[in-house]
């Protein structure tokens, strides 16, 4: 069965600094991978998605992520953090059944706090 690990429960970053959030997945084969963001009292919003192809994917609001099959990782990055990035970020994996199954397995999430 697939699984996702986000090793950092909390990350604090200064506004304007760079950000990296780590995600490790376990899946036999090449999965579909996602990063979602959850703002307080809001639903999950998709930041970016990886479908088999280019390992670096661009998302919304300046986020990007890089897929590594050898490291079983899908780390999220942003060059310059804004206060509005204060949120919880979830990495998720979906089975590749010749197409996207839509059945997502999520990590535990990383709370990002932005300080001035």
């Amino acid at each position, binding site marked *: 069965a697939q699984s996702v690990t986000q090793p950092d429960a909390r990350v604090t970053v200064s506004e304007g600094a760079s950000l990296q959030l780590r995600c490790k997945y376990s899946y036999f084969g090449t999965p579909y991978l996602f990063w979602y963001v959850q703002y307080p009292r*809001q*639903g*999950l919003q*998709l930041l970016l998605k990886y*479908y088999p192809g280019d390992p670096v994917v661009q998302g919304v609001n300046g986020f990007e992520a890089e897929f590594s099959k050898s490291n079983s990782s899908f780390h999220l990055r942003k060059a310059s953090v804004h206060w509005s990035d204060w949120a919880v970020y979830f990495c998720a994996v979906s089975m590749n059944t010749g197409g996207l199954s*839509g*059945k997502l397995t999520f990590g*535990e*999430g990383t709370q990002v706090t932005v300080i001035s």
Partner: protein
Amino acid sequence: EAGVTQSPRYAVLQEGQAVSFWCDPISGHDTLYWYQQPRDQGPQLLVYFRDEAVIDNSQLPSDRFSAVRPKGTNSTLKIQSAKQGDTATYLCASSFQGRNTEVFFGKGTRLTVV
């Protein structure tokens, strides 16, 4: 385009009471999911439907939880005899089956069982 709509937004129950959550997916989406998200954890899939058929309910506590989608559109998730351990946010999501489709989430119903 309207998103996934859920109601109520909040619910507070005593142990042993029953509660129902309602979800209206995005128009045209044939697949609907219910996730449970305990506080400070990631969402966990409970059940999902394609049209009116249950595709996977293996993670649904069948003795107290039930979910239906009778016409393949709206869905209801019901908890009979709630327990404190059911305290969580219940998220509904929908998608259209096909290659490289995206899953869209509602804002959720936050349940507290005291």
